[in-house]
């Protein structure tokens, strides 16, 4: 029983990372219409930024997190402005942006390799809360609690921002059609920057938190998050962050339990199988909304 509950929490925390990453990834997909292959590198770079902030400047934990979050956000903005902005006016649809994102993926990935000396690094144990919280028979690492809470806060915050505020409406509007939004007076460029930043920052947060709690800061960090975060987005229905959050958590839990009780070799296969079955049974995901264009 104790093992079961501990694994449940392990899975939940792991899934929270997937979800957090997925929220950022899904945000660009649903609002800006970009299937961004480079998104994983934002997480890698965020972790790297956080790591060097600690390593070089010995900053405290919250500052390291902030460095990762801001780093991820800024990187997303830069990529957007160099890679995606020039394509917007030219109406290339999803494909053009997909390819520039692949280009950025290649570039940022190999630069991240150089930045880490191709090594897998880790935050020094003293630089973050690394104790176990003891709750009766349960022992839970502090980082897991932080991760779980971070997802909760981000999900609620971003959901409210997008669905209930004017800025959120503007974000959705710009994603649909910049000109249409601008006709209402929306500064599409600013909104895009904001969206990109938010998406990069959220995934960046997943990157630093993941880098810290798994003792693994490397240029491949983002790729793992990308595959699972992507799955969370698909299952959750990409235009609703709540769906992504729930799906991500479930994914983490399923993964841990499959590995614990069934087989590690089939862990990923099992997860993706579930994903596919789910998609075919419910093509729009958990919360995916109905179409808004007429047939």
């Amino acid at each position: 029983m104790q093992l079961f509950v501990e694994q449940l929490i392990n899975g939940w925390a792991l899934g929270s990372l997937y979800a957090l990453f997925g929220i950022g990834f899904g945000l660009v997909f649903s609002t800006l219409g970009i299937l961004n292959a480079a998104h994983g590198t934002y997480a890698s770079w965020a972790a790297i930024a956080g790591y060097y902030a600690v390593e070089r400047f010995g900053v405290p934990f919250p500052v390291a997190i902030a460095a990762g979050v801001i780093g991820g956000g800024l990187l997303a903005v830069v990529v957007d402005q160099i890679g995606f902005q020039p394509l917007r006016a030219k109406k290339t649809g999803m494909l053009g942006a997909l390819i520039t994102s692949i280009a950025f993926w290649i570039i940022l990935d190999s630069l991240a390799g150089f930045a880490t000396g191709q090594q897998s690094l880790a935050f020094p144990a003293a630089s973050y809360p690394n104790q176990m919280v003891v709750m009766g028979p349960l022992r839970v690492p502090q980082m897991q609690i932080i991760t779980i809470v971070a997802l909760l806060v981000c999900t609620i915050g971003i959901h409210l921002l997008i669905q209930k505020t004017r800025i959120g409406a503007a974000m959705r509007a710009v994603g649909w059609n910049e000109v249409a939004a601008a006709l209402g007076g929306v500064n599409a460029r600013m909104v895009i920057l904001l969206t990109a930043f938010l998406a990069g920052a959220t995934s960046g947060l997943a990157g630093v938190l993941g880098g810290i709690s798994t003792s693994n800061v490397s240029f491949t960090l983002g790729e793992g998050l990308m595959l699972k975060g992507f799955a969370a987005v698909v299952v959750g229905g990409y235009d609703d962050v709540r769906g992504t959050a729930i799906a991500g958590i479930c994914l983490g839990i399923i993964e841990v339990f499959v590995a614990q009780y069934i087989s590690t070799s089939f862990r990923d296969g099992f997860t993706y199988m579930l994903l596919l079955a789910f998609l075919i049974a419910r093509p729009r995901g958990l919360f995916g909304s109905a179409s808004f264009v007429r047939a």
Partner: protein
Amino acid sequence: APAAGEYGVGFITENTGPLAAAGVSYHRGAQLAVDEINEGAWIGQGVKLKLNEKESGSDAARAVQALTQFSADRNVIAVTCCILSPVAAALKPVTTNAKLPLVIYGATLPGLPQPPYVTSVVGLPGPQEVKMSKMLAETLKPKTVAYFVNADNEGFQNRFKAAQKVMEEAGVKTAGVVSILSADTDFTAPATQAMATNPDLIMVWTTQTPAAGIIAALRARGYAGKISASDVISPAPVFKKIGAALAGVPFPIVFSSEISSSPEAKKFVEGYTKKFGEAPDTYSAQGYTSLYLIAQAMKSLDGKPSREDLAAALGKASAVEYNIYGGLPMVNGQAEVQNSLVAAWTADGKVVRWENK
């Protein structure tokens, strides 16, 4: 000795991609060997080797392209490559067709070498693992062991099986086997799983990043028992990353810059440290050795040696004569492990012979 001149050796690098961390070490080891060989006129007066690099990123298709380009380059007389067995396997037919000798410096799938064109300077796993397991069974006297193993890496599965066999023969029960995948990064759940079996010893038979992550996760979750691992945790960056949690974890190793004490090893460590500002690791040692094997074969030839001649000489080698392992016999183009040690990190980051404390 062959005629004076510069002879190219193609080196397929893996300085980027998933194995770049080790790839850089292999590359550096080879660079150092070439420097030494040239400076000391090791092959013969005026005979120089030149390293031609092409990157593969551990991708088989890129490696094949690199190899065919080397084979088109008349100055290249031999090629050395490959950390991954599948990549090496993909190069095998190409290099045999092109009659270009290939020395494998990293991949350990049994059966890869095929003299004369394909030879390998890396010992197959087995003996070191057996030796360490016996030692651990005797000194620690564990009743149960839990194992971590890569579900997707045949090499480590073999090591795990060798170790498990020794342990069970010594009457040590298997408490549990936890599988992980090479690309995994989160090990809290596997650590929880292993700790739940309450073992006396945990043996970690996985690739580098998982091994480091598993040990870190076990200690972070408060596991205080014994852990052992493989030589993947021997490079300095691993200690730098994980720190004191690694201390006292035994691992088998054939070369250690701090323990190996033959004159060749000392010279290697000195030269490497001078050139690259850090001590060599087990991978740099392998890259280094592969170049010396080629040089040794060159040395035995006269005139203007052809690729075929060189291949024949490589295939005939019964040992790598100049090596830093204190002996490295070769059987059928395959190097064999002779002198392995059991080592461990100290809490302040030194590698020493392991003792049960």
